[in-house]
């Protein structure tokens, strides 16, 4: 353990903005890459079943 307290951990030796900014941004970008295909898949399946209903 290099940090004595949770507050010290959050402070990152004075570099909190840079360190947590980096990790936060990475989290957002990586999450977006998971959510976008799920959303696209839903859209696609919806349009497929609409097309099927119309053709009947």
């Amino acid at each position, binding site marked *: 353990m290099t940090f004595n307290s949770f507050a010290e951990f959050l402070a990152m030796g004075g*570099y909190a903005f840079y360190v947590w900014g*980096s990790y936060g941004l990475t989290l957002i970008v990586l999450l977006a890459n998971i959510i976008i295909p799920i959303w696209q898949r839903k859209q696609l399946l919806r349009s*497929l079943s609409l097309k099927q209903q119309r053709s009947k």
Partner: protein
Amino acid sequence: MFLIPDAVVRFFHRMASPPHFYAFTEKLMPWLVTIFVLLTAAGLYGGLVLAPPDYQQGDSYRIIYIHVPSAWMSLFIYMVMAAAGGIGLVWRIKLAEVVAISSAPIGASFTFIALVTGSLWGKPMWGTWWVWDARLTSELILLFLYLGVIGLYGAIDDKRVASKAIAILALVGVVNIPIIHYSVEWWNTLHQGPTVTKMDKPSIHVTMLVPLLLMALSFKMYYVIAMLQRARVELLQRERNAQWVKNRFLEKQS
């Protein structure tokens, strides 16, 4: 084919068929996610909690645990994309084309992460957000190559033609990869030289190296997961009129 066991050949034949690929990756996914979560938890704990601060950079260096793996991934994914594109170009294998285009947004994301975390690291350490140095500039060109691939694919309606076009663009862009890799050696840059890939004697302590390698594996696993998810959607989109898609998604609803 006498050197490759029959079972292996059969595995690849099956995997290249869209319905098999779709079903197989669905079964594989929970395992991939489990491995990813374990690697990430171990890597972050090791990097943010266990590893000591750097003797020169204090705690700011902890950005390394996402910056360096992202930069590695930006190059790795580009090579996968170009190789898959090349395979699709020569043998017209649909799955290779799908892997190539599905890799592009993830590669672009990692390139973006590498650039922005580098900037967030550069500000407190170099005193500037950005310099036009060889490493940074060539990595920025990589981002434009990825965006070019994505844009070109979107601009062509026939996706088989679009796949040919992006494969050629990706293969031409491969010239940028060694430039990025060797930029810190060929030119005298502000960006520091390699710390890990000097395999004989990495200039990084083992308590810092282990979490870094764990995060590199974690990001690699993330790429496999995110790429497969995109590939599955892309495959459905392309095969939407095929019987297997109708059997799988439409018959049940009627």
